[in-house]
């Protein structure tokens, strides 16, 4: 086994045995879904160096695409719902990426932000389609080739399988020449362009990959709770994704996953103990931004060295 394979093998084991330790399969499923969202975000910020404030747009597109299919069409296979979500997320991301990649720096960030607000108010107003602020209700969870997923443990293992496949693919993408080009753009876009790379195409492709993964995350979430809340496209969801990605360490998808785990655990466990936990989250987040750019993952590396 290669050095790269070891962390992934450990991850598989952790995910496989997690339900034996933590007896809340719903919470674990949610952590994995958030892990997907944060990892998809880390491709944009960690690799490409683009701060996307519009991840909730792709999340919402995926959730509503899958949700509408499952609500209105009978006998939709679960994988078809996920593919539809990935396609819709990717399409939205292609448009946002195409438009945002022509602007520079903070203007591009503002543009993703504007798209997020736009998507939110559209989803809010199109209540005949989306259910508005009541959410889209009645999303069913289909069986997988006859395999019943209605129990939360079964759905956890389904989500875990999807997660591991996508996560592995993302790791390969980052290691591939494609990933090197993204980092070259992050370090110096003019230089990457001078070498001969069509940087805009690489940026849009990164957006498409990120959007597809985020769309899948949205669909998995919709099937977990049986409905699509309006918060799916809320700007707060975008900022939560940003926070998760940064907390764990934006440099690698593992960091993003760690951040999602910490966030899910804090928001679930700590909110029972102390209602003002967002204060702690804010302080933690600001501390990471000020002094611990590598996120929580950086602490592990320091210890190891």
């Amino acid at each position, binding site marked *: 086994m290669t050095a790269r394979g070891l962390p992934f093998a450990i991850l598989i084991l952790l995910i496989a045995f997690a339900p034996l330790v933590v007896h809340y399969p719903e919470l674990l499923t949610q952590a994995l879904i958030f892990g997907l969202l944060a990892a998809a975000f880390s491709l944009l*910020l960690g690799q490409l*160096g683009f*701060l996307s404030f519009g991840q909730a747009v792709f999340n919402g597109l995926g959730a509503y695409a899958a949700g509408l299919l499952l609500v209105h069409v009978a006998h939709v296979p679960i994988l078809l719902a996920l593919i539809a979500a990935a396609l819709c997320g990717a399409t939205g991301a292609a448009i946002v990426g195409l*438009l945002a990649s*022509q*602007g520079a*720096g*903070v*203007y591009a*960030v*503002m*543009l993703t*932000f*504007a*798209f997020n*607000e*736009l998507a939110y*108010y*559209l989803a809010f*107003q199109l209540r005949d389609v989306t259910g508005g602020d009541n959410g889209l209700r009645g999303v069913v969870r289909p069986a997988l080739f006859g395999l019943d997923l209605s129990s939360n443990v079964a759905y956890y293992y389904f989500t875990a399988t999807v997660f591991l496949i996508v996560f592995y693919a993302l790791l390969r993408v980052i290691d591939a020449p494609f990933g090197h080009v993204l980092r070259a753009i992050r370090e110096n876009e003019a230089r990457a362009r001078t070498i001969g790379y069509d940087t805009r195409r690489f940026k849009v492709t990164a957006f498409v990959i990120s959007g597809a993964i985020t769309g899948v995350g949205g669909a998995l979430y919709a099937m977990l709770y049986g409905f699509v809340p309006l918060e799916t496209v809320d*700007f707060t969801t975008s*900022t939560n994704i*940003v*926070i998760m990605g*940064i907390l764990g360490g934006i440099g690698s998808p593992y960091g993003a996953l760690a951040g999602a785990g910490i966030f899910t655990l804090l928001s679930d466990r700590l909110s029972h103990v102390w209602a*003002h936990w*967002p*204060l702690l*989250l*804010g*302080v933690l*987040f*600001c501390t990471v*931004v*000020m002094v611990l*750019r590598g996120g929580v993952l950086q602490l592990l590396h320091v210890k190891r060295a």
Partner: protein
Amino acid sequence: MEPSLIAIEILNGIVLGVIYALVAAGLTLIFGMLDIPNFAHGAFYALGAYVAYTAMSHAGFPLALIAAPLAVGIVGIIIDALFIRRLARAGHTYQILFTLGLVLIVQESIVLIWGPNPLSVEIPRGLTGGIALGLISFPYYRVFLVVVAALLIAAVWIVLERTKLGAIIRAGIEDPQMVDAIGYDVDRLFTIVFGVGVALAAIAGALVLPLRGGQPAMGNELNALSFVVVVIGGLGSFAGAVVGGILVGLVQSLMSIVFPAADEVAIFVAMAVVLLVRPQGLFGRR
């Protein structure tokens, strides 16, 4: 549609627009001039409303209008000096991220100190009642709000454009090293400008309190809108922030009677179009 209804919506649009202009003027100082994309601007607006609420119950409304910007401005100065200034070299991304964390901290601190329930405040004594305009009546308090906001905006504009201090600040933005070399402490000057920008948001929150009440998340909508205004008006253009603010207020107010389903959508479409077609904004020079 009744003409008087349109007239009142235009007046309300101007009131709304003046609030946006005031908050956006503060953001123009911070984002447009100092180049700090402060995503916590709306949070400072909310904090201003809450500080004013407490000050009002102890010392009355006029003092609250002084206490809120002063207290929140000082908070802003401390945060800038301790944290945001140190992130300048790390770039926009980290400044945005830090201020994003700041929103969580400020918003949750408000809940911790004042509780999660919405505030409601009566119109201050002496400002109740309204001006009769034919069949309708326009509240005095709204007139007061527009006058105070206009005076504040004018004062900041005069300081920036017509005084030596303003000249030093503008020179510092153009060429900080040169101004530093002449003997002015640019860092300290900019931290004070940051504080003034935050104070403008805070006093807007205080002024809005008797009109719309307050709640911990009240800053989120205004944060988004003030970025819209600054982008549409033109980054760094003070006149752009004022005209953009009133424009957005009017559009929002008139859309609410013509086509209520699309008022927010229209504003963010406008922002996206400006960013794509004319990123320097309506009044920007860059």
